[in-house]
């Protein structure tokens, strides 16, 4: 497995939304029995059959990088986890359906990860403003996943689903809503499994079969220069 053949997908979201459980479910098809806080970054691998069922079927190994922490972390933590944002081919944004703040924070998460990637010299010029244009013409495929679906009472479901629909429109991404402790959401043949598979196929397609993907190789030629004012108490 040459190192050039990597397909890297980030899994971003607030602390406690269930990213680690989700990644485990996607990669191992099993429920994660022992979730604890992710320190730094935890990686898992998913075996994806690109164009399954067709003569062009090929097996790819997709790396899911689950980044721990919150958007309000100290700047030293943010600078450190920025090393994980290099050469990203896809992003999965995870939010907790029972917690509106986690959905709102996704804008900041995506800005943090994408601004790292799109500027060629690696200069972080994020001022926190959300720019819709950037998502429409974005080269990196996004997927929106809402967790803890089972914890929403029946009468609130339509309201929550409307909200997530707006969110997925803003990000120009597909959305999946599920409960990470129940493997049947990703059972073969369900619409969720199809959406997930389609997303990974799209990621692979962008990575290998289109000419305009610009990757940042290596990080010795990356200058990181933080324009944000240093805030220290």
């Amino acid at each position: 497995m040459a190192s050039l053949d990597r397909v890297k997908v980030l899994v971003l979201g607030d602390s406690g939304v269930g990213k680690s459980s989700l990644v485990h479910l996607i990669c191992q098809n099993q429920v994660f029995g022992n979730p604890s806080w992710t320190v730094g970054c935890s990686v898992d691998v998913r075996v994806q059959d690109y164009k399954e069922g067709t003569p062009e079927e090929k097996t790819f190994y997709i790396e899911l990088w689950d980044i721990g922490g919150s958007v309000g972390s100290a700047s030293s933590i943010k600078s450190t986890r920025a090393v994980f944002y290099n050469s990203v081919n896809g992003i999965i944004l995870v939010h907790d359906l029972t917690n509106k703040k986690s959905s709102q924070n996704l804008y900041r998460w995506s800005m943090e990860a994408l601004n790292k990637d799109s500027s060629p010299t690696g200069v972080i010029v994020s001022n926190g403003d959300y720019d819709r244009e950037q998502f429409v013409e974005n080269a990196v495929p996004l997927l929106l996943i809402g967790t803890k679906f089972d914890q929403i009472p029946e009468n609130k479901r339509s309201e929550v689903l409307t909200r997530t629909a707006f969110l997925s429109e803003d990000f120009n991404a597909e959305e999946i809503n599920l409960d990470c402790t129940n493997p049947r959401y990703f059972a073969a043949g369900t619409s969720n499994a199809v959406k997930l598979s389609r997303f990974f196929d799209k990621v692979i397609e962008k990575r290998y079969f289109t000419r305009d993907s610009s990757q940042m190789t290596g990080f010795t030629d990356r200058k990181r220069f933080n324009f944000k004012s240093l805030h220290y108490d």
Partner: protein
Amino acid sequence: LCTYHRFIFFFCIQVLFFGFGWLFFMRQLFKDYEVRQYVVQVVFSVTFAFSCTMFELIIFEILGALSSTSRYFHWKLNLYVILLVLIFVVPFYIGYFVVSNIRLLQRQKLLFACMVWFTFMYFFWKLGDPFPILSPKHGILSIEQLISRVGVIGVTLMALLSGFGAVNCPYTYMSYFLRNVTDSDILALERRLLQTMDMIVSKKKRIAMTRRQMYQRGEDQNKQTGFWGMIKSVTSTQTGSENLSLIQQEVDALEELSRQLFLETVDLQATKERIEYSKTFQGKYFNFLGYFFSIYCVWKIFMVKFWSQHISFILVGIIIVTSIRGLLITLTKFFYAISSSKSSNVIVLVLAQIMGMYFVSSVLLMRMSMPLEYRSIVTEVLGELQFNFYHRWFDVIFLVSALSSILFLYLAHKQAPEKHMAL
């Protein structure tokens, strides 16, 4: 100022304090969480408001504002309310939210919350036994009993925090202690971190590949017939799964390494930022303050006292403001470090409890900094507590905390450069 106007005046100021506590809660503590239980926010703001009112009353005492009878009345009123909040309301709600998080006890939430509260009261009462805080002539249900215990807890907390702060503040801001961190140090660590992640990835790919092959072969396995077919199937799956568990162990070790490298990198980044900050104007200002306060703390250790009213007032004012600010900042950092969406309610209430007890005992200790003529009201209101005990207890804990902090920081500082040598 007639009674009616006086009450309005006090009420308005309390609403102001309440509003400040509310804003602090929303903008700082809970800015990443959704407030689902408004009672938590209300309890926090109420505790904050009544705690701040006590400080306000001390200022009025020194300034001589309002009449002494009205000051005495408001002192008593405020004290009763805050004791009610700290001993009944907050502990009960802490118990209630802790119980809510435990699935088994969901059905009888109120009952279990009451049980937790009674346990708290038992230990709270027992706290009074080993300490000589009351003169024997007090009855069992007097206010002095409650205040004395709250005082012990709060004073211990204050001394621990002050001791640590007295040592940590100069350590943090003084350039002498800062290690020399260059960009290349950080880049080297980051390279190691990414290499470790790459190794984890390649091993996980091998595991996934092996599993897939085993699964596919498993299907063929069922078609194997005959004696040799059976032997082959048994041996190949054995070595397959042995290999897997070996690789999995390597992965576990590498993941632990990656976490350590991540934390070390964060540490280096934080040190680098601290160095850059100390070169700015704000940094230099706090540097100077650091020197100033460390001298003041050393002075305090040797117990030298001022007597003039103006210096006393300014000093008391500074102590109050830096105390509140320092406490709020410490609480916020602590909160970010340990909270999650499940436990955030409980943690905020615990912080409110600590804050309330801290402020109550600040009042007790403030007697130490106040001249004789202003001490009388505090003595009168709080009854005949053995104030000397509190002062001595504070000094002991302060010394212990400061010395342990020095030892701890020295060891941590010594460790750090060696860690990076091993690159």
